[in-house]
């Protein structure tokens, strides 16, 4: 374990049971419950709230992308707003200028994102740790300016951006537009999470994590660190770009000032709050990043940003492992409690 | 004579690993004590523990005052000068700047120029190199610089960690001669950690032998040198 990213501590003991179920059993049960809840949720909510939970999922996918790169491969990025913007603008341009179907823009945005990430991954090979953070910082600060650039205006719509209209539910399904797009996003999110989980648990995933933990040792064991790092950048950017495309469709608008450095910061904060290196944390991170600023604004409109900053600092002092750390703590405590029961049995 | 340094039941930890297991020893004012032992016995850790550079339990008193748990810079300010393993030279600063830095822990900042002259008397080669970047000095010269820097503190107690390491025998012998001079003329007590047991026993009056974090034996240096069995089993010569 390096000192670069605080990956979530010692692994949980998978065998010790809690109330008769193993950790895996609990994980699957929780997943099932959460899924049922997720599917049912829109029916209890108004259209704005449905829009909000859709955005939570979109941020979750973006944060998942960042987690693949930073959490699992140890490469810092303060620049994921750029990949998000690439996905968003790809979708917007294809839909508005070329009349492409919204659904088709998702994989296309993913591919464009992958290419961008892969290409950025090459110079990134020469940069590590803080220097990569700095380079990606520069990327996200420069992005809005690039999007406003007048030579690209025909495509990007310049400062005004591009307006879209999202499709209503097909086949005359009895769903509102917001509800339909929530389910589309949910499906895409599940697909992305499933892909990420498979990647992490595969041999490739182990190579990727080995590079994070000790790049020199990994290289001496024959892992092609250069290739894996650039691929990981690509996959990470792919996921975030897909999220960007979804956001363009759902929000029905893209403009340069939606994709500032601040957005990259939100993604990184979401990553840390959810828990670096923990896939489900991305949803918690997404929710944090969507709702907490709103809550802060509810407490005091002027001081909302200050409050948010203070909350972030508290998180980093008190729970640097984020939600995953809390879950881990809860699981080990419960295991201890139920150990006595196991012994008696 | 009262003990200048008294260590009782000192245990030291690096993270969760216990490296010293409740050792006790003392050093009289004006005396030279040496701590010997194989690699990994805990000799360096003992010096680091005195300087607050490791997690410790037990008691350490300097002239009756407890110093265990104090920050490193506070221990230095109480007159304990540590010449660390590897010299600890400020390689990108000049020789003179290195010496000046040695005075930072002093309460009394007068007489620095005179003290520097005295250092140049002990180690003439440093005078030649006074404006040179310290990293360009040879190993032996850097060791002398490290000792001189420690002396600039006007310490009561000097801790030396393997001063002979990596140096040619001729230079080491000269250095130990100077150490004896310093002990006598400056009245600086010394706690010396060494792998070169012969040299150390020649200089010191008392010796402690450490083995895996415990005191295996202790006694006057002369007796240990004379005892062939001890020399062979503990010191390998």
């Amino acid at each position: 374990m390096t000192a670069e990213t605080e990956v979530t501590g010692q692994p949980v003991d998978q065998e010790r049971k809690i109330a008769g179920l193993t950790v895996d059993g609990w994980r699957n049960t929780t997943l099932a419950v959460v899924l049922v809840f997720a599917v049912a949720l829109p029916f209890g909510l108004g259209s704005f709230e449905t829009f909000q939970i859709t955005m939570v999922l979109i941020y979750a996918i973006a944060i998942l992308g960042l987690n693949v790169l930073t959490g699992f491969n140890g490469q810092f990025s303060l620049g994921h707003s750029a990949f998000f913007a690439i996905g968003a603008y790809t979708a917007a341009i294809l839909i508005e200028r070329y009349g492409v179907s919204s659904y088709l823009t998702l994989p296309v945005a993913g591919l464009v994102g992958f290419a961008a990430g892969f290409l950025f991954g090459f110079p990134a090979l020469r940069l590590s740790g803080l220097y990569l953070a700095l380079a990606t910082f520069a990327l996200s600060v420069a992005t809005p300016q690039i999007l406003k650039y007048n030579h690209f205006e025909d495509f990007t719509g310049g400062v005004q951006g591009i307006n879209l209209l999202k499709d209503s539910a097909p086949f005359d399904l009895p769903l509102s537009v917001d509800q339909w797009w929530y389910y589309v996003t949910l499906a895409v999110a599940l697909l992305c999470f499933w892909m990420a989980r498979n990647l992490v648990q595969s041999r490739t995933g182990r190579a990727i994590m080995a590079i994070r933990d000790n790049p020199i040792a990994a290289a001496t064991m024959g892992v092609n660190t250069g290739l894996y790092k650039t691929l990981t950048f690509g996959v990470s950017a792919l996921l975030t770009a897909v999220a960007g495309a979804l956001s363009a469709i759902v929000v029905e608008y893209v403009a340069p000032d939606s994709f500032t450095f601040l957005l990259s910061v939100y993604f990184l904060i979401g990553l840390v709050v959810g828990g670096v290196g923990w896939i489900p944390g991305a949803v918690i991170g997404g929710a944090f990043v969507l709702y907490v600023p709103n809550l802060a604004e509810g407490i005091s409109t002027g001081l909302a940003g200050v409050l948010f900053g203070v909350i972030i600092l508290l998180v980093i002092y008190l729970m640097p492992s984020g939600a995953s750390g809390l879950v881990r703590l809860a699981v080990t405590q419960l295991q201890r409690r139920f150990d006595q029961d196991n012994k008696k049995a | 004579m009262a003990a200048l340094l008294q260590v009782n039941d000192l245990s030291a930890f690096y993270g969760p690993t216990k490296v010293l297991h409740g050792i006790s020893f003392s050093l009289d004012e004006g005396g030279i004590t040496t701590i010997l032992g194989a690699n990994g016995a805990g000799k360096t850790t003992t010096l680091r523990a005195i300087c607050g550079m490791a997690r410790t339990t037990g008691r350490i008193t300097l002239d009756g005052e407890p110093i265990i748990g104090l920050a490193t810079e506070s221990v230095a300010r109480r007159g304990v000068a540590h010449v660390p393993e590897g010299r600890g030279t400020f390689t990108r600063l000049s020789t003179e700047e290195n010496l000046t830095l040695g005075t930072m822990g002093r309460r009394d900042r007068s007489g620095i120029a005179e003290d520097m002259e005295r250092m140049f008397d002990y180690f003439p080669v440093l005078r030649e190199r006074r404006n040179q970047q310290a990293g360009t000095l040879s190993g032996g010269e850097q060791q002398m610089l490290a000792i001189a820097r420690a002396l600039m503190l006007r310490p009561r107690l000097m801790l030396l960690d393997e001063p002979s390491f990596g140096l040619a025998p001729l230079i080491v012998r000269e250095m130990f001669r100077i150490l004896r001079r310093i002990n006598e003329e400056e009245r600086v007590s010394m706690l010396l950690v060494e792998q070169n047991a012969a040299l150390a026993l020649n200089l010191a009056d008392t010796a402690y032998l450490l083995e895996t974090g415990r005191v295996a034996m202790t006694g006057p240096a002369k007796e240990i040198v004379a005892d062939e069995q001890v020399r062979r089993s503990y010191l390998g010569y």
Partner: protein
Amino acid sequence: MELFLSQVFSGLATGAIYAAVALAVVMIFLAIDHFNFAQGEMAMFSTFICWALLDAGVPYWLAFVLTIAFAFAFGVVIERVLFRPLHNAPVLSHIIAFLGLFFILNNGAGWIWDFTIKPMESPFPEGSFGGLMSYHQVGMVGVVLLMLALLFLFFRFTSVGLAMRAAAQNPDSARLCGIPVGWMIALGWGMASAIGAVGGILIAPVVFLEPNMMLGILLYGFAAAIVGGITNPAGAVAGGFMVGVMENLVGTYIPFVGSELKLTVALVVIVGVLMVKPSGLFGRTTVTRV
């Protein structure tokens, strides 16, 4: 030719500000091995304090000095309160802490003084030297050079300066010499904050004062530090002037960049230098031991 000269001179003027920001970045990097992503916001906040003093009728140079004192104390407090507890924390925690500070300062300034643009007074008279360089631009370069001279004297000839250099180069040995390394780091932060404030106060009359004014400047400051060598304060200063002049010349003579893609230029400089010569022009190469 006149265009070229005026671009070079105004490049030197903005370069002076980049030099100041780069120096602040390098000072904190040398102290704690981290990039202070909130450096710009700290400078901006201090500049607002100056503005507030001026608005309250305080004479310019008094306000300037008071602001520098505030900025120094501000830097020390931030280091002791926010960053000292993190000194063993992983890199990512540090980055988040810098970003949290960024948020607090950016929005804090917006809350106290709101987000509208404010004009900032210049202590230098209107007009210019033969149309080539305004008095304010000359003043920018002059003040920064004076500040650099004072810093040089401080670090070279005072005990505290020597102690700070020692603490940055070899903290363990410095402690053994009785130097309170923690406080040296705090001093470094204080000085970096003050230096950044000088930069902010000087550039504000040019770019107008508002909470988001420093992000682009900070980016150029980073670029300057990387060009000059992140481990070399003098290099960072040289880098600042170089990058300032380059920014103007590229903007004037390379048409498709114009003034619209200046931040992209900074990005290219950062990535380019880090790829080709990461230690910059004047920095030291570090070797990692396996």
